[in-house]
């Protein structure tokens, strides 16, 4: 069995080092690896990323992967934020993946920030003004990159898809419907279904709901800290139950 700790939307400020350290101190007692679903920092400042990375240093034996969120882009210094996290041992995923051998099994974590656009039936289209095209194309570009990445990892064992933005409507329940198009995109659920991943984790929707599933039945969990109401959630996966294995059997 593989035990994964996960949380998003910690929004670390420069004055939050002790708070973050205590939040994650117990992770090794509960899990084999830690996944961070974006919005690690409040304003996307390198000094915030330093505080966050420093607080995680006590988990040096633990595999940690992350995606960035919109807050991590707020100061337009996301490349510095990413470099600071990577230097401290956090694998920051964007259309990329990492494979770990933990809990006696192999698990691939594929990740992207994701973006908005909305959901099937009403998704944004790349039509009209340049700005509207750019909005729709950013989501499409991230999805295309993730598609290629998942094509390479899906047979490796268990696969977990890590996102910041939501891939389905279910886990947004509690948010105003008017902002759904800014909270996620169905393109990432479609990829989860096509590649038969085992679990999808996301954050971003602070007023949302923890549990949902893709149209193809893959579990989706919104791990925003304000949603799970604890330091992190723990999900246990059984390598014998993997979906890709079912498909190829």
């Amino acid at each position, binding site marked *: 069995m593989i035990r994964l700790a996960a949380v998003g939307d910690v929004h*670390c400020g420069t004055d939050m080092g002790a708070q973050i350290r205590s939040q994650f101190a117990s992770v090794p007692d509960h899990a084999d690896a830690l996944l961070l679903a974006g919005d690690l920092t409040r304003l996307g400042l390198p000094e915030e990323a330093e505080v966050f990375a420093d607080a995680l240093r006590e988990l040096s034996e633990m595999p940690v992967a992350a995606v960035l969120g919109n807050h991590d882009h707020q100061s337009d210094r996301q490349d510095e934020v990413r470099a600071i996290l990577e230097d401290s041992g956090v694998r920051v995923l964007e259309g990329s993946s990492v494979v770990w051998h933990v809990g006696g099994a192999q698990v691939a974590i594929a990740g992207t920030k994701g973006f908005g656009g909305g959901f099937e039936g009403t998704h944004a289209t790349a039509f009209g003004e340049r700005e509207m095209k750019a909005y729709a194309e950013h989501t499409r570009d991230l999805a295309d990159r993730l598609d290629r990445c998942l094509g390479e990892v899906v047979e490796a064992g268990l696969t977990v898809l890590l996102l910041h933005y939501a891939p389905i409507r279910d886990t947004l329940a509690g948010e105003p419907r008017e902002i759904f198009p800014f909270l996620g995109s169905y393109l990432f659920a479609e990829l989860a279904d096509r590649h038969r991943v085992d679990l999808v984790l996301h954050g971003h929707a602070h007023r949302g709901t923890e549990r949902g599933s893709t149209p193809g039945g893959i579990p989706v969990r919104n791990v925003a800290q304000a949603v799970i109401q604890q330091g992190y*959630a723990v999900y246990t996966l059984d390598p014998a139950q993997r979906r890709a294995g079912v498909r190829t059997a």
Partner: protein
Amino acid sequence: MDDPRYQQERIRQTLATDPRVGEPELGVDLVAGRVLVTGSVPNERVRAAIDLVVAEIAPGTAVDNRVTVPPADEPTGEETIG
């Protein structure tokens, strides 16, 4: 004087972009002449900054700050997937 609905949205926009708060996910409503703010922030300092920022853009308006700091406790259980 502005329609209060414009003031409500102006407060929401400022709570998103003012670096002392920086939280676009907060709810802002006008209830019985008071500004009701809901949602979550990472710590008490950001929570307190909400009152300061609203006082600057809407002087004299009462603020009902119901924003919470989410608990960061050790989990009490786990979920088995599949």
